[in-house]
């Protein structure tokens, strides 16, 4: 039985912002979650999508993520919060092997997707990304393509042929992204002709069309107005029935509204990871409390 969420806590005292303790070397021995803390009551029990163990990431000489271990549940929404530069986007990009695309980047540790090591020697990063889709902060429909082409591009370039199949899957992806009714009469218009919120949902449809198992969202609503944001959040609630969703957000209300579990990152370390309700109402860590109540960050 897997109990989630299970964040492992560094043994050291939580550092307050600005405390000048030298950073400890990575790969410190973590207490296993089961030994360390009893899961709080009502913690959901479900399948694990990602198991991350001792993850460390570097950009050149700069370490961005320190010794991170956590389990992300399947078919649920996990929010990652924390101030800018805390490593949350880097962590997210490790989950579909996008981190390694940055020149000079490297990582240690292990990430397993439904039990499979995504950095295994026989694993193709391209295929990992097909199972783990991603939506970016800035909506980026391909400017040379129509709305229909944007949605089906992942299928077409991965060898899916046949007009009927493509049309069916395009419609399904657009419906899932709650965009179908708005665009069904202008599928041949450029993707860039849509409004900002629609473009972002188009990008979600594009990611869904290749039928991934996990959807990573890197601040998907931070460039959108409140109404478009609300639509994206409603969409996330719909999508979690079928998909594992990991969302990075700066907006704490958003994390509180739409996630089941919340992880708080600070300075490249995982500070707290628990049910969202607990993180926002009764955090066990002082730093988390300070952050979610707006005292810093």
């Amino acid at each position: 039985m897997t109990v989630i969420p299970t964040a492992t806590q560094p043994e050291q005292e939580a550092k307050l912002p600005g405390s000048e303790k030298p950073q400890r070397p990575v790969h410190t021995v973590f207490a296993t979650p089961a030994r360390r803390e009893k899961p709080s009551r009502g913690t959901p029990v479900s399948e694990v999508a990602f198991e991350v163990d001792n993850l460390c990431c570097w950009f050149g000489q700069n370490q961005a993520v320190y010794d991170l271990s956590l389990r992300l549940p399947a078919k649920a929404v996990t929010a990652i919060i924390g101030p800018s530069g805390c490593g949350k986007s880097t962590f997210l990009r490790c989950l579909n092997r996008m981190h390694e695309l940055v020149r000079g980047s490297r990582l240690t540790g292990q990430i397993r997707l439904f039990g499979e090591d995504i950095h295994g020697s026989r694993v193709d990063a391209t295929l990992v990304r097909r199972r783990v889709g991603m939506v970016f902060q800035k909506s980026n429909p391909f400017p040379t393509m129509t709305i229909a082409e944007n949605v089906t591009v992942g299928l077409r370039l991965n060898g899916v042929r046949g007009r009927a199949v493509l049309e069916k899957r395009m419609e399904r992806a657009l419906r899932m992204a709650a965009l179908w009714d708005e665009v069904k009469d202008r599928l041949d218009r450029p993707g860039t002709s849509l409004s900002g919120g629609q473009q972002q949902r188009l990008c979600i449809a594009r990611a869904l069309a290749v039928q991934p198992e996990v959807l990573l969202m890197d601040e998907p609503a931070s460039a959108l107005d409140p109404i478009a944001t609300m639509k994206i959040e409603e969409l996330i609630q719909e999508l979690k029935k079928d998909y594992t969703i990991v969302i990075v957000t700066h907006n704490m209300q958003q994390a509180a509204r739409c996630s089941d579990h919340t992880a708080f990152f600070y300075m490249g370390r995982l500070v707290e990871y628990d049910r969202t309700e607990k993180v926002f109402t009764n955090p066990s860590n002082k730093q988390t409390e300070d952050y979610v109540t707006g005292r810093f960050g």
Partner: protein
Amino acid sequence: MTLDIQSPYHAWRKLKNIAMSVLSLVCAVAVVAPLALILFYLLKEGAGSVDWRFFTQLPKPVGEAGGGMANAIVGTLTLLALASLIGVPVGVLGGVYLSEYGAERVNWWIRFGADVLNGVPSIVWGIVAYALVVVPMKGFSAYAGGVALGFMMIPLIIRTTEEVLLLVPNGYREAALALGISRWKIIVHIVMKTALRGIVTGVLLAGARIAGETAPLLFTAFGNRFWTHHLKDPIAALPLQIFSYAISPYDDWHRQAWAGALVLILIIFLINVGVRALTRGRLFGAPR
């Protein structure tokens, strides 16, 4: 302390300001003026000799009236096509390497090499093609001319292609990668497609640049007073024909040379207008 807004110092500053504006305007006009003068003079000297025969007939022997440069016009277009066969694939793929694949240190050397090659005198390209093609094939040929011009296109196209590919926002590459699309498909179907106008613009400008080259053709394409039936044979080219007519002692031929120069500059002008129409202020993006 308040600022005295009527201070004579500010009048002096205004004067300097006006002087600088006028100076830069004069320089800007100086850029355009030669173009106007060249066009005006070519029209004056050459327009009278440009008629339909000029585009349809072969050169006539000395003393006979009429005749045209049809073979040279076709020859120039043939040489451009041959040069593009070499210059476009190598140049575009080289630019793709620089923008999409290359390591920073390797790129530095390639860019440096391309910039040096851009500055190589064109006659040197002629010598290179002479050694590589004319000597082994034992004769001047259209192939040799095409190779000389093609080599000249490569560094031009590499740099323009790299620049327009780098203008494609990285977000598109990342979005495509996150869809699990393989690298080369992303480059061909998304990055290059997005930058297509820019790439085509670079190719056309390189074509316009080499269309007027004479020196690399002197001992490669060599020139021909008749139709070239096989690319193994010497071929005529407008700049070569203009050169040999202009240094001849005959008035007929001088008039033909003016007409040829006018036609050549019109071809280049048309290519540039085409480039403008293609880009319309944007180097890439969806067709409107």
